[in-house]
């Protein structure tokens, strides 16, 4: 008797729980996507449509904002700057980070690993103020050199962080066999270890590039007319008396879209890279 009533009651309760679950999930997704939706919608609106209340969700889109961003604002130049700095910071980061990570993994150089991870912990401004003084003296402010070097403070820890556990998982016997066959240490690393590390290198490169692309603080101090990057360019939009919201949103779309596409396409690696240190620790 007791059991049959609970079984009868259970079915509607299960439906209610499922509906509540769906509502909770949808509100999470809605909360996460609304700012992106708002960014894209307003990028295609005229100034009058943007301040209109209630906001229109269906309207005739205009491309004026994008024409403005690429025409009068010279945004292509900033995108190129960001690309050069991001690629430079990632390539040099890999060049010095990969052998270091390999050495840390093979020889358990934990103190070195901790020092590199310190760059992740210490507020960037601690390095930025003294480095600005140095770069100013050397005439390196507003050059790719100073921007790439400072962005590496962000990229290098990611590269080491992702690669150390990766190299640890590659069996030592493989390199030892290569050395027995007469390969040098460098040769064994380049032609045995690196080809097996594709996914790790992809993850590390994406994280390093994206966090350089997104970087604001180093760039706003060190970049001006010649090397201005996209986050600084978008910030400069609001320094005018009248904010051009349409242009601002169009610029936001232009600089966020490539990063989001990159993140979605390679999500499996990126999730692993962002959470790697946490799970191991």
């Amino acid at each position, binding site marked *: 008797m007791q059991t049959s009533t609970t079984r009868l009651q259970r079915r509607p309760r299960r439906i209610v729980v499922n509906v509540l*679950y769906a509502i909770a999930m949808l509100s*999470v*997704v809605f*909360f*996460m*996507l609304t*700012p*992106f939706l*708002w960014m894209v919608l307003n990028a295609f609106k005229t100034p009058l449509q*943007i301040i209109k209340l209630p*906001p229109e969700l269906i309207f005739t889109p205009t491309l004026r904002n994008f024409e403005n961003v690429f025409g009068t604002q010279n945004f292509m130049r900033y995108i190129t700057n960001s690309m050069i700095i991001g690629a430079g910071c990632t390539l040099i980061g890999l060049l*010095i980070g990969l052998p*270091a990570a390999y*050495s840390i993994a093979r*020889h358990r150089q934990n103190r*070195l690993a901790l020092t590199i991870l*310190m760059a*992740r*912990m*210490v*507020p960037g*401004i*601690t390095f930025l*103020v*003294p480095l*600005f*003084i*140095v770069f100013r003296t050397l005439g390196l402010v507003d050059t790719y050199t100073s921007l790439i070097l*400072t962005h*590496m*403070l962000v990229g*290098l820890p990611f590269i*080491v962080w992702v690669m150390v556990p990766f190299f640890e998982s590659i069996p030592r016997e493989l390199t030892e066999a290569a050395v027995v066959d007469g390969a*040098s*240490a*460098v040769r064994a690393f380049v032609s045995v270890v690196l080809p097996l590390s594709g996914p790790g290198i992809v993850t590390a490169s994406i994280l390093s590039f*994206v966090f350089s692309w*997104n970087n*604001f*603080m180093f760039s*706003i101090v060190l970049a001006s007319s010649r090397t201005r990057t996209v*986050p600084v360019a*978008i910030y400069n*939009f*609001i320094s005018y008396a009248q904010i051009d*919201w349409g242009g601002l*949103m169009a610029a*936001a779309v232009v*600089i*966020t879209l490539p990063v*989001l596409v990159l*993140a*979605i396409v390679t*999500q499996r690696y*990126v*999730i692993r890279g*962002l*959470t790697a240190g*946490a*799970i191991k620790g």
Partner: protein
Amino acid sequence: MITRFIDRHQRWLFPAPAVIFIVVMMIFPLGFTLWNSFSGWSLTAGRPNTFIGPQNYFDLLRDARFWNAVLNTFYFTALAMAVELALGVAMALLIDARDYPGKRIVTSLLLLPMMATPVAVAMVWLLMFEPTAGVINFVFGQLGLPKQLWIAGSSSVIPSLVLVDVWEWTPLITLIVLAGLAGLPSEPFEAARVDGASYGQTLWRVTLPMLLPTISVAGLLRFIDCIKTFDIIYGMTGGGPGFSSETLNIYTYNQAFYYFNFGYASALLVIFFTIVSGVSLLVAYSRRRLEV
């Protein structure tokens, strides 16, 4: 000959370029900052780079704007961390609770807020927070709620900035906890089921205690980033209105790159650095105590 040399010394030759980078770009700047913090160097006040002893530190102790920045930093960090940890764990448990088609899509959506360029995101929130034409106050009005000043009000500015940080970084906690959940052994859950434990009992007595190490690492990661939040604060308020959202990071930035008081800014940096490493070490230490 050269390869033989490399082979013999690979232990330090492989990491050598990285070590040089660390010395030039990290250790030297830290030492230089410590040295500068005893200097009266200021471009705006026209003071040269001369040694003045610990005067900057004495000045800091009497600087109301410094104490205001300390309070703002801890207020922002504590509020953001509390909300993000609670929401992040709840979202992970929610996502983990059921299997359905399209679940993978939800996890990949989680990546979007934290990969998106923070300054671009800050600009979108600026438009949404706009007191008269913004959509958030419009929705509040429709729901019969009082309209808020958001980032334009001195008491609502930090909670509003926390909302943006929560939107941006809660997914990271969710992803870490999801990975932690996937790594938990299944035996304790089976034992709990056999013993007839309810969902709530299993959650409090089994799941959460086993997740505690994962949650504390996620918390430490968030602490490290929250306390130095720059992009969204500088991008949306610049520390205002007045100084009501000026955190240590923003105040140091202003001292260094707005007033060009390099000496005073360096003393601020030393204090800021000490606070961050102190709390991190404390958390790392207490974590070890917890596990042993």
